[in-house]
């Protein structure tokens, strides 16, 4: 039985979040084997251009809803609208990125539609004509393969930076279907009073390079060389739980079991021993570098390169070398 794919295009400040095109790429990966069409949904306030981009990224059809009440993502109006669209669709795979919004929206929609859910997946394939989704569990110490039962909709979110989108194809054509919002503003139970964005800093979950500090940095001022290396590499600043719990750096930087899960190309861990809870958040980085004064820490089991030395001597030298070699 053919199964259609429906992909939510997540917008941040009116622009498509890169994770939306990664979700499109994930859909494209299984669309052939599932034998269905690919539909994108775009909700927002002024989404015409995004709908066009979705077609260029592979959508055959795009549902758009353009309304001031949809200008910023909120779960209730988005979920109710998406669930209403699904009521009129044959059983479909509903795909989105496993961002903070995507995880929430897919779970909410799955509840409204009575659908099965496979969140935060790292691989998708088709087994006997049915979708199978691979996802880490128990903070990376188990791998689950989720398969769907029954004939209803299936909701899936895919982890950031796993699926690589192809270049857009401007020659593609597709149908755009406009739908009205499902809720009026006074039916929406929440109001966004203000939004604070961290300007000028690279988002941890999106960063391709992360430089992190742990207990070994010794204090808040110890993060200075760590931050300097992150800046020199154009990367984001991370931290272990020990450093966050000590109050040296805000929680938003925490990588690991009770922080963020990241999958950058390069992860440089400075003064981090590699507790299982930290490994949970970063061990799938493509290249891991550990800098630690101890010659034997658990992180060395996962790291590709290690420097056993004082980070306060080595980091400034690495910053200088990076600046020299990369011309920054």
């Amino acid at each position, binding site marked *: 039985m053919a199964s259609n794919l429906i992909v939510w295009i997540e917008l941040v400040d009116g622009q498509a979040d890169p994770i939306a095109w990664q979700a499109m790429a994930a859909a494209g990966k299984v669309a052939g084997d599932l034998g269905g069409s690919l539909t994108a949904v775009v909700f927002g306030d002024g989404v015409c251009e995004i709908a066009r981009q979705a077609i260029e990224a592979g959508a055959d059809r795009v549902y758009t809803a353009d309304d001031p009440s949809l200008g910023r993502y909120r*779960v*209730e109006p988005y*979920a109710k609208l998406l669930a209403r669209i699904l009521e009129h669709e044959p059983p479909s795979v509903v795909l989105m990125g496993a*961002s*903070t919004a995507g*995880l*929430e929206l*897919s*779970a*909410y929609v*799955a*509840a409204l539609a*009575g659908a*099965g*859910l496979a*969140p*935060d997946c790292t691989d998708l394939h088709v087994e006997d004509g049915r979708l199978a989704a691979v996802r880490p*569990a*128990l903070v*990376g*110490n*188990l*791998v689950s*393969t*989720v*398969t*769907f039962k*029954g004939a*209803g909709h299936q909701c899936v979110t895919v982890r950031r930076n796993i699926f690589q989108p192809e270049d857009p194809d401007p020659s593609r054509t597709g149908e755009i279907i406009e739908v009205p919002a499902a809720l009026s503003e006074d039916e929406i*139970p*929440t*109001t*966004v009073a203000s*939004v*604070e964005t*961290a300007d000028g800093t690279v988002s941890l979950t999106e960063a*391709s390079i992360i430089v992190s500090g742990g207990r070994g940095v010794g204090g808040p001022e110890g993060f200075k060389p760590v931050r300097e290396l992150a800046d020199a590499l154009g990367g984001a600043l991370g931290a272990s739980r020990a450093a966050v719990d000590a109050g040296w750096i805000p929680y*938003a930087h*925490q990588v690991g079991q*009770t*922080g963020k899960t990241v999958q950058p190309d*390069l992860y440089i861990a400075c003064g981090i021993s590699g507790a299982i*809870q930290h490994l*949970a958040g970063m*061990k799938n980085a493509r*290249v891991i*570098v550990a800098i630690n004064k101890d010659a034997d820490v658990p992180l*060395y089991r*996962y790291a*590709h*390169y290690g*420097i*056993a030395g004082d980070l306060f*001597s*080595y980091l*400034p*030298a690495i910053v*200088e*070398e*990076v600046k020299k070699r990369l011309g920054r």
Partner: protein
Amino acid sequence: MNIIALVKQTPDTAQLSASMDGLKLSAEGGPRIVNPWDEYTLETAIQAREEHGGKVTALCLGPPEAADALKTALAMGVDEAVLVSDPAMADSDSLTSARILVAAIRKVGAFDLIVGGRAAIDGNTAATAVQVAALLGVPLVSYVAELRNLDPSDRTLSAVRLLEKARETVTSRLPALITVVKEINEPRYPSLIGIRKAARANIPIWGCKDLSLDAAAVGAGASGVEWRTELPPVREAHIEMIDGGPEDAARTLVDRLMEEKVI
């Protein structure tokens, strides 16, 4: 205020070791803790009661041994605890778990606030509490890093949400369901008196019958997904230690990173 705290018991990942892999840890009888995110759930609920009065009821869906998680909740200071447990409920997926919890919440009665954690560290779906809000039709405020204003008389709350790329301040009507992240507070340790009281507590167990749920409507059979679980591929140690003083090591490291095309 009537506050409901949703708590899960999870494997204790701190016990993972060379001789205790993920499968052994998850197996029946393995070491268990209160889901680390739910320590913040409990602290949030208890603080709300301390400020506004009322009662905190902790609900936990799990096998009989999950009563231990509720003992911790009682020792921390929740007023009542209920274990939702039935052999028929085993291997429920997130939506089926949410349906069971909704039935339990309805049995608890009227509420002003439901608190859950961002996720549980075992399944890590970050879905069940969200789905409870969807099924109850109450406002959902997720990823709460700060509860600025909880006003039971005005029936509103204001909270700061920690999103991937922003901090968002939202207001919501009450009753509402919030999920919390670590930044929100520092969970208290159970007091000695609390631990003694909790040890004596008789924790009620609600099964399918108590919740008027058909056994066929819960558990693996009623779930929209099934899953098979295995250990991740073993990772061989393949580290290259870079020797030398800072300048030499820096040069070698940058060489390697450029060869790897990661910088």
